[in-house]
């Protein structure tokens, strides 16, 4: 069919006219420069991200391992329950002298002269102070252990842990470091015999805070942050979106709505600690909610996050083309239906971006929690959001201020966990955003 349009003889191709100078070279240079700026910008951001992560991970990855010492513990009845009263009074098991069990075990393991006081002290100092509690809990849970000898893996003291990980400079004068040469030798001895091992640090994820670095964990902080995030997400996203919808789609445009708009922009600029003041006076002093509770923290962070979400949502709603609105209205959709069926889904990527940023911000905040009692030492895991708890950034903040060396790696470890938490949380939102994203 195309034969009829093949060029016929005698027909020539037109001659190109004289070239106009439209500055092509210059403009292409500008174009390339412009693109290079973009690449440079992204690279700049990513390089910094990389350096930052490198620093954090380089310092913190060791926190995910923990030195433990496996000792054959003799649960001698004479030490635990000399008068055999445990049947009638179980509390003797709680009050029993467990450190002695540990002392005996380590002394035996290391072949130390039990009468040499300093040696015995240095040897027991290699074990965590949490170890007796561990034994106690074992016995209370299972009294039949009494009289048996069991291999128990107990935490090594934080200093031994640091030494084992090579974080203590052994060239420093012995009295200026927390581990003496004797202990180092013992440590190597235990390592050689396979009693001292490095294990994955599950305690970091399940334990509450502790003054002993080796036993300190993020359990409470993780639960607290989870509560905080759930509360913030459950409140700020719907409230923020609802408020934006009202302001953008329904509110009459007048001085009052201008005021609200300015006001919301301004709230985004309020320093976060001021929200702490607000939370203290409103939620704790006025409403009477308990101190240190993640519910209060969640409410405070919600208020702090709302402006971010509202601003982003309004921008996203505004970007939905009017023709879509007209189409929906023209079909007899009510304004409410128009918004919820068409405008909102189209605005979703922007809303999700705002939410991600807002939540991430909330997840990393310490200052507002300071005044409502969440920057605190909390050892017991909260069962409800009304019980005292902390949050991940708080743990970072508190550990960063600890004197003990072993907390340094834990601080970075906590940051890594916080970042993982953040990434997991964002992943969902990003996947959602992918689904919604489109051009029209």
């Amino acid at each position, binding site marked *: 069919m195309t034969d009829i349009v093949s060029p016929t003889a005698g027909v020539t191709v037109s001659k190109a006219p004289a070239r106009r100078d439209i500055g092509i070279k210059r403009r292409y240079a500008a174009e390339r420069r412009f693109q290079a700026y973009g690449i440079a910008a992204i690279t700049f951001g990513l390089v910094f991200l990389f350096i930052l992560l490198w620093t954090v991970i380089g310092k913190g990855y060791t926190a995910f391992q923990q030195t433990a010492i496996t000792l054959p513990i003799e649960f001698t009845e004479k030490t635990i329950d000399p008068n055999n009263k445990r049947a009638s009074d179980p509390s003797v098991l709680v009050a029993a002298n467990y450190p002695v069990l540990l002392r005996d075990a380590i002394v035996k393991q290391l072949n130390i002269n039990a009468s040499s006081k300093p040696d015995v002290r240095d040897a027991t100092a290699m074990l965590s102070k949490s170890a007796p509690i561990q034994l106690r809990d074992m016995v209370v849970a299972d009294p039949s252990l009494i009289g048996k000898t069991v291999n128990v893996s107990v935490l090594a003291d934080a200093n031994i842990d640091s030494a084992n990980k090579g974080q203590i400079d052994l060239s420093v004068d012995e009295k200026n470091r927390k581990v003496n040469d004797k202990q180092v030798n013992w440590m190597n001895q235990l390592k050689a015999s396979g009693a001292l091992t490095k294990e994955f640090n599950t305690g970091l994820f399940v334990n509450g805070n502790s003054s002993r670095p080796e036993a300190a964990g993020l359990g409470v902080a993780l639960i607290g942050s989870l509560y905080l995030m759930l509360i913030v997400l459950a409140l700020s996203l719907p409230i923020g979106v609802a408020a934006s919808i009202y302001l953008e789609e329904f509110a009459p445009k007048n001085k009052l709505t201008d005021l609200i708009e300015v006001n919301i922009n301004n709230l985004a600029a309020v320093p976060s600690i001021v929200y702490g003041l607000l939370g203290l006076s409103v939620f704790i002093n006025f409403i009477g909610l308990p101190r240190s509770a993640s519910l209060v923290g969640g409410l405070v962070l919600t208020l702090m996050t709302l402006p971010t979400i509202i601003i982003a949502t309004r921008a996203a709603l505004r970007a939905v083309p009017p023709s879509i609105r007209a189409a929906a209205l*023209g079909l*007899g959709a009510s304004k409410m239906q128009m918004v919820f069926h068409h405008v909102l889904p189209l605005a979703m990527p922007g809303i999700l971006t705002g939410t991600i940023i807002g939540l991430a911000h909330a997840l990393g905040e310490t200052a507002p929690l300071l005044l409502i009692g969440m920057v605190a030492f909390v050892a017991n895991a909260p069962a409800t959001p009304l019980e005292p708890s902390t949050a991940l950034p708080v743990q970072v903040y508190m550990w960063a201020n600890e004197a003990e060396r072993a907390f340094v790696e834990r601080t970075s470890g906590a940051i890594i966990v916080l970042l993982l938490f953040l990434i997991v949380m964002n992943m969902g939102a990003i996947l959602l955003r992918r689904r919604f994203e489109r051009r029209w």
Partner: protein
Amino acid sequence: MNMLTEAAVEKALDQKMSNVPYKMIGQDVSVYYGEKRALFDVNLNIRENTVTALIGPSGCGKSTFLRSLNRMNDTIEGCRVAGKITLDGDDIYDPDIDVVELRARVGMVFQKPNPFPKSIYENVSYGPRIHGLAKSKADLDQIVESSLQRAGLWNEVKDRVHESGTGLSGGQQQRLCIARAVAVSPEVILMDEPCSALDPIATAKVEELIHELRENYTIVIVTHSMQQAARVSQRTAMFHLGNLVEENDTDKMFTNPDDPRTQDYIMGRFG
């Protein structure tokens, strides 16, 4: 130029419009965009089961009048309508009137194709769904298919009704929008240059569709094509600078207009 095709003449002749009752009545309709007045005391009545064409040069207020018939103007900031417009005798600007219900009864097709960025199926089924016009999924499928068919789009998209409506070509998009409006089966359908993005075949189909719809529906169509006005409409109204110049039976309008301006416009003497 010979503006009247034989078909249109025939169509026009076989009807006497003067006895047809009014579906909508516009009395002294003026529309303001903020300070600017876009319509000046327009008195125009829309007859039932009739196609009324609105013609006139660009910017004369055709779209504005059309949009005031289903209160789409409400959505424009600063737009104000004065005068009275009734639908079946009820003032549509009465505070008691439910604007949503009004728009379900007075549907609309726009000048620029504006499909939702959703699938073709969802585009068409949206109206029936919000108005509860389908009892079942099968019912809905049926409505979607017939609407697409009436808009002359079914054959082209039947294999991909679940693909995005925005992936269609311009003309296909506009036909999709028509299908979408038709799916709600409104009483009155307002069309703002519905064929401006269509090729002649599709246009002919739509015109045919309009012809079919006229049996049951009242149609108001803005068009920039006088041939189209002549072909599809029984009544024609001519606007100029926000004024209604003349309204008349289409055949009369194109053969022997009362107003000299109509004559001039039809003859291409001004614009």
